[in-house]
């Protein structure tokens, strides 16, 4: 299976897609003055705001980490000592997808559903995968 770059790309595309679809729904309801509008559901609005905040945080973290990466030098072995760009940023991408998926689950199963364990298991598994990818990339593998 593909590596860290593909994984983070998937996470980012999920949240970007979800934000775009929700904005389209909101725009449609606003333009056509519909009787039923997704804006009446308060959860979707807050989810999109959180996802947008996550994405802007990810952007700031990535820029900061990349700049420090440019300024770094390799002191021992063939890898960056602190981990740098490989570690910072991807977990924020995961948070963005986390918010989007949580909204998806809540809209289908309800707020306090017992099926929430499915969602927690999925997020735990994604974090586990992300950790291993970061480790593999950091110790010298291909980030692809």
């Amino acid at each position, binding site marked *: 299976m593909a590596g860290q770059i593909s994984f983070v790309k998937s996470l980012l595309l999920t949240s970007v*897609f979800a934000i775009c679809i929700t904005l389209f729904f909101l725009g449609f309801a606003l333009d056509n003055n519909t009787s039923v509008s997704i804006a009446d*559901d308060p959860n979707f609005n807050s989810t999109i705001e959180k996802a947008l905040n996550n994405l802007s945080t990810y952007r700031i973290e990535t820029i900061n980490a990349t700049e420090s990466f440019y300024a770094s030098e390799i002191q021992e072995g063939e890898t960056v000592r602190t981990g740098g760009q490989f570690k910072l940023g991807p977990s924020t991408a995961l948070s963005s997808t986390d918010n989007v998926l949580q909204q998806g689950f809540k809209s289908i199963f309800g707020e306090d559903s017992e099926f929430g364990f499915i969602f927690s298991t999925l997020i735990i598994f994604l974090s586990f995968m992300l950790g291993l990818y970061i480790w593999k990339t950091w110790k010298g593998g291909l980030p692809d």
Partner: protein
Amino acid sequence: MANLFDFPNLTGGFDNVFGQLAQQTILFPIMFLVFIFVVIFFSGTTSQIYRRGDADFPLWALVSFLTIDLIALLMTLSETQIINIQVLSICLGGTFLVAFWFFMSRGRFEN
């Protein structure tokens, strides 16, 4: 003899018939959406299996969900309420989950 449902009539015009129908049987628009989803999903995957031997299930699930999203949006245009906010949010939430599945599956279909 009392009827189980009130039959729709053409007093309000042809487009009102569907609205009256939806008000009498609330499940009808939902079943219609599920029908569209199932037709697109199964026809797409089956024809792809015949052509290529393997079907891209996440892709077809996403295409089906996007189609019912648009049909649900069109249903919200009516003055007589055909679907309610729960159905719309389930369509949107389902699209989120299936989109996640789709983007995570891309590694398998790239060379």
